[in-house]
């Protein structure tokens, strides 16, 4: 797909596929267009041209998108006066899920009952990420779209997230996550898509891209090459 903002081409013919049963890491320097692509994928903005589909249909045309796709785009985007539990309760109400599901996801992401009763205003970044992940998991979706979910998580949190995403992928979920934590992506992801300046620079399994080198080397090489071409 292509996405233009006034005078800026944020995405330039970006095209890739995410398969079920896999974790796909979505990488690229700041401003590469990762968030833009994920926002288009879940119908929050429209592409200038091209399409983004999930199960073969644009997000907005899915029967019940909230049931099939769990999304976390910005952990900070919540009303500061609501408690964590209230934010999840609103989500569960929208999806028609029982309230017990709120307790389940809270426990799953490791937020205590006391923390859940505090207002969002006082949450640390890591707590916000956990809450956002809990929200994304409410309906046990088959597809997960996560924008930098590991950002702000403590080492235990990152370890836990890795295990969770692995388990989800193994049960057939399609997981797409963007991240700047290359060492982490290297351990979680089956495949990576690297973009830079709105273009796909490389796509494939870690072995295909790395051929012995680590992901950081590959990433720096790819983005440096792209910068030279742009200059």
């Amino acid at each position, binding site marked *: *797909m*292509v996405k233009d903002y006034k005078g800026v081409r944020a995405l330039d*013919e*970006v*095209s*890739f*596929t995410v*398969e*079920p*049963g896999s974790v796909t890491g979505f990488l690229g320097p700041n401003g590469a267009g990762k968030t833009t692509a994920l*926002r288009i*994928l879940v*119908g*929050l*903005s429209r592409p200038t041209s*091209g*399409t*983004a*589909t*999930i*199960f*073969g249909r644009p*997000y*907005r045309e899915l*029967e*019940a*998108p*909230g*049931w099939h*796709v769990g*999304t976390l*785009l*910005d952990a*900070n*985007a*919540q*009303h500061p*006066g*609501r408690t964590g539990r209230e*934010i999840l309760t*609103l*989500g569960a*109400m*929208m*999806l*028609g899920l029982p309230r017990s599901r709120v307790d389940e996801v809270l426990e799953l992401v490791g937020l205590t009952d006391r923390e859940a009763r505090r*207002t969002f205003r006082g949450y640390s970044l890591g707590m916000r990420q956990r809450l956002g992940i809990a*929200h994304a*998991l409410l*309906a*046990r979706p*088959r*597809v997960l*779209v996560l924008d930098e979910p590991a950002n702000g998580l403590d080492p235990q949190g990152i370890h836990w997230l890795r295990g969770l995403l692995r388990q*989800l992928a193994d*049960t*057939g*979920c*399609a997981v*797409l996550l963007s991240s700047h934590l290359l060492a982490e992506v290297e351990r979680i992801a089956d495949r990576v898509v690297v973009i830079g300046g709105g273009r796909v620079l490389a796509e494939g399994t870690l072995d295909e891209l790395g051929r012995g080198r680590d992901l950081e080397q590959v990433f720096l090489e790819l983005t440096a090459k792209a910068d030279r071409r742009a200059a």
Partner: protein
Amino acid sequence: MSDVTVHGAARAAGETAGENTAPKPVPFHRLLLVEARKMADTRSAMVMLGLLAAMTVVSIAARGVDAGPQLGRLTTTAGIGYGTLLPAIAILAVTGDWTHRSALTTFTLEPRRGRVLVARCLPPLLATVAASLFALAVAAPVTAVTAALQGVPAEWDLDATRMLGWTATNVLLIAMALAFAMLLLHPAAAIATYFVVGTLWNLVGNVSELGREIARWVDLGTAVGPLAAAELTWMDAARLATAVLCSVALPMAIGAVRALRAEVR
């Protein structure tokens, strides 16, 4: 060749062996419940609602002491709070999701944004009808008590058309507040505009006869006068209709079109 595709698993999978029951689109009544709940699920929202209730009781009681036990008059005294705090509450109900950016979550769970917007505007309007009934419920005991204390007979007769006119006036003014909120999507700007517009039209009306005539056709605050007094002529009704178009429908439509098209940030 420019697209992004996510292929899903054939079956639902979760972190446990749990299975989804047949997923359905979000029904409208659920949206309505969620949006109504959002009006009262923070401390500040509860404080505002409590203040409104307190203001209603106090103003009705004070008017009772001052004007004597007249049910109808005491009921409409609640309009003081309903003309000030209630519009602010309604505006916050519409703008909150945008200012705190929780619209990101709302619109991923329900991408049919139009339905969300309707579900969001209905609770404040319903609350206004409830508030009008609440005023009556407060005014009745105040009338009885005042009559007993002052030793004068209570005036219980309630002009039904007057009450309906008053309630309809409250609802229309809240609809205008909602429209400004939809247009501006910013709480402070919408609240300020709501009150400044009223003052400006007053000024225009005072400056010239022509200005007053225009205000009668365009400004809702002016046009609802005859409705509130339950003395609506056909001419007044026509003015009211055009004022609703200009002050409610137009800003609401512009706001809705933008909200449907714009990027959710």
